[in-house]
């Protein structure tokens, strides 16, 4: 079949002596409609037998419903527990910065201020809010990070014990909270997500959490 195709690009085109007058317009043979038509003519060949048989098998098979994760969550570790925050709320993750204590303030949650590129941001303790004890000894190879989180234009900074990463999930993958859960973490979670490695991630309810922090700070 290939003998039917005039391979002009090898004779007068860029792979030949480049004497084709169309080169002035198209610069390279791959932009030329003659070259494109020759490529498309390859599809005029008869289909190989095994190709069609393979396709017939493939079409007959029921397509596995692919679970498309349309939501993404930033997963991190606090103590021994894993939590998730919506990715779009995360502003930045950075190395820990010095925390400046605010004089004459003893809020259990508001621990001080952190300077982020010259801007003072409120630093809160997510460990205390969620009732998680800090891991006694950090596992080797993991490092604590500071995470900046945004809600209604207000930035909040908190420390996490480890960044796990961004996890995509579908809304139907979220499971309800166990009814036996009575810790503070349950109060601020809207569901749990079981990851492939059997890790359970608590999805934090941002609105309730921030509402509580704001109230606690105003006291």
């Amino acid at each position: 079949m290939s003998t039917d195709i005039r391979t002009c690009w090898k004779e007068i085109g860029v792979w030949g002596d480049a004497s084709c007058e169309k080169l002035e317009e198209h610069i390279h043979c791959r932009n030329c409609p003659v070259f494109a038509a020759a490529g498309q003519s390859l599809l005029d060949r008869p289909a190989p037998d095994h190709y069609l048989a393979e396709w017939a098998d493939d079409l007959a098979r029921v397509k596995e419903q692919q679970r498309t994760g349309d939501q993404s969550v930033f997963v991190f570790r606090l103590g021994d527990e894993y939590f998730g925050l919506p990715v779009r709320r995360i502003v930045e993750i950075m190395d820990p910065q010095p925390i400046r204590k605010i004089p004459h303030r003893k809020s259990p949650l508001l621990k001080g201020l952190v300077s982020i590129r010259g801007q003072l941001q409120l630093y809160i303790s997510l460990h205390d809010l969620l009732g998680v004890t800090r891991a006694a000894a950090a596992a080797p190879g993991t490092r604590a990070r500071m995470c900046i989180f945004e809600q209604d234009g207000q930035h909040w900074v908190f420390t996490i014990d480890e960044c796990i990463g961004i996890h995509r999930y579908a809304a139907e993958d979220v499971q309800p909270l166990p009814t036996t859960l009575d810790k503070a973490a349950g109060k601020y979670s809207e569901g749990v997500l079981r990851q492939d490695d059997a890790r359970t991630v608590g999805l934090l309810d941002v609105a309730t959490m921030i509402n509580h922090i704001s109230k606690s700070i105003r006291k």
Partner: protein
Amino acid sequence: MLFIKLETAGQEYALAVRSIVEIVPYVALRPYADAPAYVAGMLNFRGRVVPVIDLVRLLAGRAAAQRLSTRIILIDYPAADHRTYLVGILAEAITSTHSYENPAFVDPGYAPPDKPFLGKVVCDTEGIIQRIEPTNLLPPDLEAQLLTRRDTRP
């Protein structure tokens, strides 16, 4: 609007991509016994039995050639009972898509009564291209037999 171009008997046709579900190669079909020649057969599409209409037979009066560019276009066919059914259209030389503006299409002036699926035409650098309206592919009695009256429960 985006169209896929197809060519039969030297003439080019365009089919709007909006209603297309999937385009698959021309695999072996199980023929319907005693059906009109333009009903190419049944396709096992993901466990569903989908009737395939031979557009080449309708337009050129011959069977579609077994080429790599001969394909089955699966469309959502809006039937008379206001539901959509999966229908395959067998056509040749499906290798490219093209975008045409909707107002560029004009009435060709003559509508063959036995080919109500032929729509408006548009002028292109390669000639005049006619739109295929897949909604009118099946005559009412065949549509009822193949689609609406069929019990699709296994």
